[in-house]
């Protein structure tokens, strides 16, 4: 058994998920490929969104993949860090906005 849950070399094997379910695997990769094509948003913009989301879902494979993708597209480290902050701000905002629920409950329960 591997000693660690995550192995960087596993990212290269991602495509192998089709081996256990060809139809669903292929459908996923077709969809995935389509999503990141140039569209109303540029592929560059989508790469930055993907980087931000990678951090929010805390996927080490995605972080590796989209940091490299950004470098390949000439995206600067300043742009990358701003994207990560955008993701982090939403994530912390999502936590903090629940503070209102806490306040409501507190007030309701208090005399």
């Amino acid at each position, binding site marked *: 058994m591997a000693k660690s849950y995550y192995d*960087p070399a596993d990212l*290269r094997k991602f495509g192998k998920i089709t081996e256990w379910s060809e139809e669903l695997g292929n459908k996923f990769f077709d969809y995935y490929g389509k999503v990141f094509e140039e569209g109303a948003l540029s*592929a*560059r913009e989508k790469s930055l969104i993907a980087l931000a989301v990678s951090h929010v879902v805390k996927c080490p494979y995605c972080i590796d993949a989209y940091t*490299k993708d950004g*470098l*390949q*597209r*000439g995206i*600067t*480290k300043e742009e990358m860090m701003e994207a990560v902050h955008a993701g982090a701000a939403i994530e912390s905002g999502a936590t903090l906005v629940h503070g209102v629920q806490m306040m409501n409950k507190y007030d309701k329960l208090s005399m």
Partner: protein
Amino acid sequence: MTQSILTDIKKAAKKSLKAQQDALANTQKQLEILNGGPFEDGELPYFKDKIAETGQFPLKPKTLEVLQINVGYMCNQVCGHCHVDAGPDRKEIMTRETMEQCLEVIRNTGAHTLDLTGGAPEMNPDFRWFVEEASKAGIKDFIVRSNLTIILANKKYHDLPEFFKKHNVHVVSSMPHYTRGKTDKQRGDGVFDKSIKALQMLNEVGYGMPESDLRLDLVYNPSGAFLPGDQAAMEHDFKKALKEDFDIDFHNLFAITNLPISRFLDYLIASDNYEDYMYSLVEAYNPAAVENVMCTNTISISWDGWLYDCDFNQMLDLKVASKVKHIKDYNDDILSNRDIIISQHCYGCTAGAGSSCQGTVA
């Protein structure tokens, strides 16, 4: 750990691998690495087997179009990614005698492009004489690969833009990024500012202007263990940034993949990126790019007159597999029958849209 190795590389970066007596200065050692690892283990296919899948082995030359002459490995810079292992400490310089032999071939060949490279070709003491003579040979496209900073390196080079213009030379220059940080990291401190100044000087005499016949193209290669992005998108970003920030014009941007040889191979290994990089290259393999890899229309000539399939094979010391191996015996017919020598570094020429000294090929 990796970080400290990288710091060591940086400290040593003022010298070529050869001057450091680094194990990788030995081309045999480089070839061992390229043939070993994931290829030996059968995890990745050898380049030979990969191109055989589409019936492209052995790789054969087509019509000769480009003579690429390396006039010496001396350079004013010591870039971390340099596949030539060039630097101020390299003393390999083409003599006038070998230049005469090259001129003889230039005058008689059917090639329409002459491509002078180095090192910094301008540092060869006979460079100007050679350009003057070669420009008389009626070659259609006469390229000089200039690293830009050489123009500002010394007073005696300040007039290079005028000199290039006089001989209608097509200037092709490297520019790793349109931001200072990335450029200086790859090529050395201060390189960005000097490159910008040099580009402005070239623009001033007419190079790179939208309607100008004085061609100025830029070469972009990634500053690290990743592949170049889409050439057209990169060109768009470079044009916009260089124009807005520095009022610089240029014609085309060539996106070139770093091949895993020499100093770039050294960097890949020391930074623990080698295997991943080879996987990326193989994964991005594009059979359509094989059709037009550089070696199919080019002959590369070294400072001492030996003939190679390309500049990369020259740096691996893989001389052409032909009876004719030296410029003094040059013969188009015999050379065109050769098989091109390949190894795993060739994956760098066939990744994605492909890569050659003129950018993408597919």
